[in-house]
């Protein structure tokens, strides 16, 4: 079977996802400006330890080989190691994403002793100024400390995960050198206008000239750099990048949020893309196999306004989430369409009407002690 027909098979969906992301908690010590899940505060409806383990049992029965755990900051959960160990004991390998805040020397040794575990540390700049502007004060040092601790504990090749923005695109070589210095693997992904990213996207997303830069850089690094297949919209620039070149939403990927809701992909935490809940009768398996939303996503998608463009076969119209949260029609060009079709439509969109994330767990801005005192004096 050729790669082409494999992709068309995959587009019709699999019996279970290949790549399932599970955000364990909305709680986070950071408040990154591009957070896909608008994380910050814990949601009181979070799955309990028992529910989480039952969900893992279900994934084991569906033969889901591995899961991607994220958040929020997943290590904030007190049962984090319990769930990690339980998942691995059930034959479900884990890759988890973290900002590194809780990987001290002890935890690093504990993690290094586990099999079937990958760790992905987020870093959005090779210097504190660039990184902290997006991820918050102190977050660069936090991530580097975690990397040092993992290296010292002999964890092996962890991953450094970078969201490419207008401000760090010139650092791609430096990110690669940093990863190499740790014997780590570099992963670069696309910035999405999802979650808090809806507000920061316009200032952070790469310019069209920078998109060409990213494409050329990825082409020259091939499969040595991971991308989570996230840059397939750039394929309109030339030969395809390594990967399947398709949107996996609801077909081979999905997202489980901390309260058990199932979404089509990690970038669309919005009611319109909610397929059900692992708490529903029939659990996750029924949602994956029978949800009308997911079944619809597995139908052939219309090229719509893109059908007259010669590049559609290469870029597939880009990312559904990127279109949705920038107010563009789903059967039209990606806002970052390299041919420039997205830009024109984007200019006509009234951004005030764009869909907002259905949930926001951003922490409220705290009134500082000084200002409280001032208020007291005034009153």
């Amino acid at each position, binding site marked *: *079977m050729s790669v082409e027909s*494999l992709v068309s*098979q995959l587009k*019709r969906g*699999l*019996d*279970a996802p*290949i790549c399932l992301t599970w955000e364990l908690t909305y709680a986070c010590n950071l408040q990154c400006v591009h957070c896909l899940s608008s994380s910050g505060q814990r949601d009181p409806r979070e799955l309990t330890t028992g529910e989480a383990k039952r969900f893992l049992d279900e994934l084991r029965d569906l*033969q889901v*080989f*591995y899961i991607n755990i994220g958040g929020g900051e997943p290590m904030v959960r007190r049962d984090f190691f319990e769930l990690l160990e339980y998942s691995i004991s059930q*034959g479900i*390998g884990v890759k988890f994403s973290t900002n590194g805040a809780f990987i001290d020397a002890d935890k690093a040794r504990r993690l290094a002793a586990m099999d*079937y575990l*990958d760790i992905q540390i987020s870093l959005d700049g090779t210097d504190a100024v660039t990184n902290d502007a997006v991820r918050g004060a102190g977050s660069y040092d936090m991530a580097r400390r975690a990397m040092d601790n993992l290296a010292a504990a002999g964890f092996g090749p962890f991953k450094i995960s970078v969201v490419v923005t207008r401000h760090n695109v010139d650092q791609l070589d430096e990110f690669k050198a940093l990863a190499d210095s740790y014997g780590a693997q570099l992963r670069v992904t696309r910035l999405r206008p999802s979650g808090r990213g809806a507000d920061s996207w316009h200032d952070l997303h790469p310019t069209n000239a920078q998109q060409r830069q990213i494409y050329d850089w990825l082409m020259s690094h091939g499969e040595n750099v991971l991308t989570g297949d996230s840059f397939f919209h750039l394929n309109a620039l030339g030969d395809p990048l390594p990967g399947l070149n398709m949107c996996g939403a609801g077909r081979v990927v999905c997202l489980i949020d901390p309260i058990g809701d199932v979404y089509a992909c990690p970038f669309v935490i919005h009611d319109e893309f909610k397929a059900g809940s692992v708490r529903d009768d029939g659990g996750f398996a029924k949602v994956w196999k029978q949800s009308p939303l997911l079944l619809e996503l597995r139908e052939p998608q219309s090229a719509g306004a893109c059908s007259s463009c010669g590049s559609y076969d290469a870029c597939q119209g880009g990312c559904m989430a990127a279109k949705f949260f920038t107010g563009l029609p789903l059967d039209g060009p990606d806002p970052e369409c390299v041919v420039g079709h997205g830009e024109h439509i984007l200019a006509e969109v009234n951004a005030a009407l764009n869909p907002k994330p259905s949930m926001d767990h951003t922490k409220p801005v705290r009134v500082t002690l000084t200002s409280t005192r001032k208020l007291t004096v005034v009153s």
Partner: protein
Amino acid sequence: MTVLHTDSMTVLDTALELNPHVALRPEPFGALAYNYANRRLVFLKHPDMVKVANSLAHHDSLRATLEACDIAPERWNSFVTAFESLKSSEVVRER
């Protein structure tokens, strides 16, 4: 019978088995093979591939497995290519 090129003789006459780190998950097109040790995911793109992969350990060679699974000889070349690739990606191994 289809004439096979010399290199193919090696894997055809080799006793193979599924790598013990590999799990197969049936899918409409065939199966997904996941190697827990090297974390590679590989597609087995035909149900017959899955049948053969699962029977390897019961026969003395890939040739004997293909015969036992009733795979028509004119298809053997493609199976040889596929199993060479599965061997290099550590989905199957020599025993």
